[in-house]
């Protein structure tokens, strides 16, 4: 299959997987998922994946690790979040800091 066809396949599969999980919740008997251990594990899995994605999106460059303009952007985003800035402000600040640092030639 062409890379484009594979991408489409992965998009439909990903969408259906997330939908199937929602449907399973509606179809299973309530007590199956009511156990605190299940809820706790599901919540922590979300935290673990998002935290890992923060790290990868900041430091990974292919198979290597690097420090570049994404790090000061993340620091500014963290400060904005600590000051309770709205989501879009945090994202736009992150982009602006990285773009600015690169435009000034301070970091790659």
């Amino acid at each position: 299959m062409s890379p484009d066809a594979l991408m489409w396949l992965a998009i439909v599969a990903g969408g259906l997987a997330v939908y199937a999980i929602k449907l399973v919740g509606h179809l299973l008997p309530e007590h199956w998922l009511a156990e605190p251990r299940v809820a706790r594990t599901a919540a922590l899995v979300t935290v673990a994946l998002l935290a890992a994605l923060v790290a990868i999106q900041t430091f990974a460059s292919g198979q290597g690790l690097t420090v570049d303009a994404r790090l000061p952007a993340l620091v500014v985003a963290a400060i904005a979040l600590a000051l309770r800035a709205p989501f879009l402000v945090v994202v736009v600040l992150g982009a602006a800091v990285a773009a600015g640092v690169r435009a000034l030639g301070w970091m790659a």
Partner: protein
Amino acid sequence: MSVATGLYGISFGALSVAAGLSVLQTVVLSLIMFSGGSQFAYVGVIAAGGGGPAAVATGALVGVRNALYGARMAPLLGVRGWRRLLAAQVTIDESTAVATAQEEPRAVREGFWWTGVGIYVLWNSFVTLGALAGNALGDPRAWGLDAAAAAAFLGLVWARLADPVARAVGVGSAVVALALTPVLPAGLPVLAAAAIAVVVGWWRPGSTVPDDEEVGA
């Protein structure tokens, strides 16, 4: 809530195109998947060079909490047949949070449907706008969109880090993912980090549950 959803949708659309999806792929993904955290995670794995299977697995794992919402909502909604298929699709953080905050059974149902369907329309409209805007921008790095993705993930996880156990799991996952990056194919280090959460969540009884409902999609 609707302004927040719109702005959040624009960020997703732009970042998805920056990750390499086309505008149409971004919109189709969003229409089928319809869960903000899962969508961001999915394109995050693609942006990091991970393959389709790793992206599907990561998106699905981030969406596991929706099954818990579904189990809570099903008895309150009391729907059967095709309506149940629709109810499942709009079972997300916001619709569950609004519905379970109501007291009257009728208000629960109305809160769920109005919030769920309203956000579905709004979210996907703004994702489309964001994707078109991202497509018009050109080089994602010159605009700092790669850093915006990191900021977006930090924003998504931030409110969930109030609990000390969640914080420890978050830091541990970040370290594990970075340590494994040079040795595993892209996409797998993020999935490996989820193993920490399973171990802690399953075998460490007594830790508190971070409240997902105040966090957003």
